[in-house]
């Protein structure tokens, strides 16, 4: 049988056999295998993607957490600071109020003292004037006892004084 002339019988059988093999394998063989393999590689790719996503999410979550902690810390510092300020303000206000109160009390005391002094002054004046009047009266009475005339004058004065008061 010649080498380079294709033999009809073999050609015929080869077409039949290869055709049958092709039909069987193309229907029941390779598509099942390749589909399964493709499904798995898709699944792997999908899993990798999901893992990457989860990792990113976790990272984002950790970041969020860090930010929260940071914010809480900042808030705490803020609160502490404002509390200190408030305390200081309160203290200084109390100081002020106290000193104002003290000043007021001092003022009032001063005023009272002044008033007391004025009163005392006035009383002293009245006392002095009463004393001097009494002294003068005594002197005058002594003078008047000496002389009736003078007694008449005094009466006249008293009358005048009384009248003057009535008027």
């Amino acid at each position, binding site marked *: *049988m*010649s*080498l*380079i*002339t*294709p*033999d*009809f*019988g*073999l*050609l*015929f*059988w*080869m*077409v039949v*056999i*290869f055709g*049958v*093999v*092709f039909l*069987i*394998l*193309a229907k*029941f*063989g*390779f*598509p*099942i*295998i*390749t589909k*399964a*393999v493709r*499904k*798995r590689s898709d*699944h792997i790719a999908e899993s990798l993607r999901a893992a990457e996503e989860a990792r990113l999410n976790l990272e984002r979550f950790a970041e969020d957490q860090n930010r929260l902690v940071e914010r809480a810390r900042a808030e705490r510092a803020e609160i502490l600071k404002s509390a200190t300020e408030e305390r200081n303000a309160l203290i200084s206000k109390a100081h002020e109020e106290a000193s104002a109160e003290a000043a007021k009390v001092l003022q009032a005391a001063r005023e009272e003292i002044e008033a007391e002094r004025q009163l005392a002054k006035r009383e002293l004046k009245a006392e002095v004037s009463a004393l001097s009047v009494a002294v003068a009266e005594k002197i005058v009475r002594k003078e008047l006892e000496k002389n009736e005339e003078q007694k008449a004058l005094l009466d006249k004065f008293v009358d005048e004084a009384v009248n003057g008061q009535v008027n």
Partner: protein
Amino acid sequence: MRRAFGIALALLAMLLPSPSMAAESGSAFNMTEFIFGHISDSYEWHITTVKGKEIAIPLPCIVIDGGLKVFSFHDREAAGYTLNDNGKLVNASTLERPLDISITKNVLGLIIDSVLLVVLILLCARWYRRHDPLKEAPSGLAGLLEPVIVMIEQDVIKDAVGPEYEKYSPYLLTAFFFILINNLMGILPVFPGGANITGNIAVTLVMALFTFFMVNLFGNKHYWKEILWPDVPVFLKAIPIMPVIEILGMFTKPFSLMIRLFANMLAGHIMLLSVIALIFLTASMGPVLNGSPSFVAVLFGIFLDCLELLVAFIQAYVFTMLSAVFIGLAHQKPETETN
């Protein structure tokens, strides 16, 4: 080196005490007959010759010659047929070739290899039917075949064919494994193997024709335009030089596929047989002259067998890759106008 020399001497010494060996082989060794007997198709599957008695499996002859006739090769004389000078069946009375669709050695080899291939692939597919590939790693046959299938599909078919590769991958995978298993079985020296199947031009012709139809039946509009009215200056199309070249190209591509596989496998078989034939060729020259070539022939035969294993894979790979490239060329998207 010294050890090799020592082994060679030992082999020679073993051969020395039997000077009658050459005489036993009898008549002169016919190298052409030896080689062609092995690489060509025949109506019986010759296995060996023991003490001048041939052991061969007679195969059924089927001829259509005024009706379908089926008979065993050994009974050809009784059925009225004889062999002509080319070793083909002819009608004994008219000496004309009937329509001969006998189950020859190559056909039987094809059937055996195909059954083997179908069983292997279906068993592999069964694994995927019975297991969840998302939960289990392939084991056994699936574990063996999956990497090969994935390599061919993803690295060869997908890259060469392009986005529509899924439609063609069953054909290309079938072609790859069909060629591979026939190549490998061809290397086996005894019965189920040993037939020179992929080194037969009829087989490679059919393979090439399948690729030809796969390429041309499903080629897109752009592919046909490139053949019949390519983007070249008009004078090359007015006298249809380019279309003629392109149409010729349609046929030379599968032709090259056919010749490449055929020639490579045939050459491999011939080389291997020639080296082995050295042993028989020198058998009549006495033990010393026979011994050293035998030793060399065995070493070289081992080397060639390893080489053939590689070639068996490479040729299947190349056939698949080129088929995929040709299919891919028939599915190119038109480029955006560059001129």
